[in-house]
């Protein structure tokens, strides 16, 4: 009996010892690895399975793999392997695609698709008073003999507060129009888009649709979901609003412009935006570097996804860099309002 008991105890202790570890069949295998081919293949496959704009971009991802994988070799330096993988990602021509390491970040220079369409110093020197207002993320004041309110919004910091907008929009309530300048606004918090646009509508408005990648196939998407916007209950501005854009208007900036297309009293002016209408999702490679790329598609009201390449303006206007005393885009917007 005693020996049976001992056996039982030993068995249980063995079981306990076996369980008292990190069972890879439950937690999963640690795939930590610096092999350039393994990391390349992992990144390529993640993009293949989850990236949302292959069809629109017309990218042959299998051909891209052959093209860039052949540039790797076993003893390649980390810096060089990074450059190869970063160049592969740049083939997607998407500002929401990056590879990030401790020593470098790959990026696709979306703003270089067109000329820089703003010179801030020109606006400060020739249009705004010296003591212009700064309300949170908005730099603003009257222009054109107090007939127009000018609001410069350079980044979606997620910090738009009701008090900022209440103050600015109350101030320009009796103007003939407002110019909202989001040129070179690289984006940020998408919540700001809705906070901002809710001030310029007077009824519930359908802005756009979005759909999410739901499987590894190129066209495995969820049903399009509608982005509705309710008007703000406080101070609003429902007069004419001209929104200035350029190629540097990206991500949340492009979302704003996509929404503006559905708002009748708002006009887009300047250059096509930089796109960035896919929500980027992040991940990590076996060597520890991280990446991100788009996993959603934004669609217009007629379910077109092509604004990912940039939201076109209603009125095209360019800054003339030969005359730095004048902002032609701003002048054109003033003409449109007056």
């Amino acid at each position: 009996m005693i020996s049976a008991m001992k056996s039982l105890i030993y068995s249980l202790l063995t079981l306990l010892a076996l369980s008292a570890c990190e069972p890879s069949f439950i937690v999963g295998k640690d795939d930590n690895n610096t092999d350039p081919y393994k990391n390349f293949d992992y990144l390529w496959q993640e993009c293949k399975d989850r990236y949302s704009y292959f069809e629109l971009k017309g990218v042959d991802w299998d051909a891209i793999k052959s093209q860039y994988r052949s540039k790797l070799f076993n003893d390649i330096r980390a810096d060089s392997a990074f450059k190869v993988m970063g160049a592969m990602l740049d083939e997607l021509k998407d500002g929401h695609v990056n590879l990030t390491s401790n020593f470098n970040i790959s990026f696709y220079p979306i703003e270089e698709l067109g000329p820089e369409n703003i010179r801030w110093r020109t606006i400060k020197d020739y249009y705004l008073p010296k003591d212009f207002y700064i309300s949170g993320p908005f730099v603003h004041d009257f222009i054109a003999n107090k007939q127009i309110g000018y609001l410069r919004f350079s980044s979606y910091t997620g910090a738009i507060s009701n008090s900022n907008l209440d103050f600015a929009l109350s101030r320009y309530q009796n103007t003939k129009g407002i110019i909202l300048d989001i040129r070179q606004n690289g984006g940020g918090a998408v919540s700001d888009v809705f906070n901002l646009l809710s001030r310029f509508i007077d009824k519930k408005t359908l802005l756009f649709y979005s759909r999410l990648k739901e499987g590894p196939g190129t066209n495995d998407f969820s049903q399009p979901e509608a982005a509705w916007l309710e008007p703000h209950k406080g101070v609003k501005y429902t007069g004419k609003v001209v929104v200035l854009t350029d190629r540097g208007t990206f991500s949340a900036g492009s979302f704003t412009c996509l929404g503006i297309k559905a708002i009748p009293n708002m006009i887009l002016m300047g250059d096509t935006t930089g796109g960035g209408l896919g929500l980027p999702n992040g991940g990590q490679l076996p060597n520890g570097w991280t990446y991100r790329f788009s996993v959603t598609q934004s669609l217009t009201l007629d379910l077109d996804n092509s604004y990912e390449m940039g939201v076109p303006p209603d009125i095209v206007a360019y800054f003339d860099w030969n005359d730095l005393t004048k902002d032609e885009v701003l002048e054109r917007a003033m003409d449109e309002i007056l």
Partner: protein
Amino acid sequence: MKKEFVLILVVCIPLLSLGQNKDSLKAIRKSRPTYVKVGTGLDFGAFKDAATSPLVYRGLNLDINLGKIKMDTSFESEMDYKYLLGAYIGHGGYQNSASFVNTLFVSYSQLRQVQVPWSNRWNLKVGGAINVTGNIRFNADLGNNNLGYELFGNLLGSAQLKRDLSRKKEKVLHIWFIKYHLKPKSRNLALRLNAGIVNTNLRNGYAYTGQSQVINNFKPFDGYHFNTFTGMRFGSKLIYTKFLKNKNAIRWTYQFDAYSSGGNVNAFGMSHNTLSFALLFNTK
């Protein structure tokens, strides 16, 4: 599915007090010693969220646990709340990443005695447990996927073997010319094993990120799926309890717990090894 149903019945039947007189049950229940448990400890954890990284993150946690225990020879129940707070590191070949994780476990277990023929110092109980575990993880390196959270709900089969290590009578030890008086003590050592029978989880969908924020309709579990009969969970506990003269007790526990979401895409797995110390305050 049929197999799982039978297993659920096997676990649940001990939870029901079948075949016992209601009055005698009530009396036993009333007289059953009850303890409030307050404990703390250290935990070594590991996890892998294949949706965002191929790396296993490992880290140390602070463990805080509270509970209510009812136990006697024939029955044992425990309502347990356990909170872990810790930092985990994923070692990539070139660079590391940190993930800060909060984990909350809520579990309830009931065990009933099964007679063993070999000795009255051994006590075998079987029964079941329900465990709900939630993680909130933050890893700044993962961009829009920096916040990960998931819920696991498991119905477990449970068995516990307890050995009474009490010294019933005073013992005198003679070491050379020194006489030691070893006073009577009440203590026991228990080994409990748990295995998941019904495993469920609430996990991210294919894309991991939801799109609710983009469509101005933020939902915290946007794109999540409730998955049933998938994944696994098992664990073990080695529990040493020493009863004091004032009817309170102190308890040392080594606990192992591991669970996974199952599935080939976006699989998640986590394990914990916890060493904890608790005070058991007798309330009845």
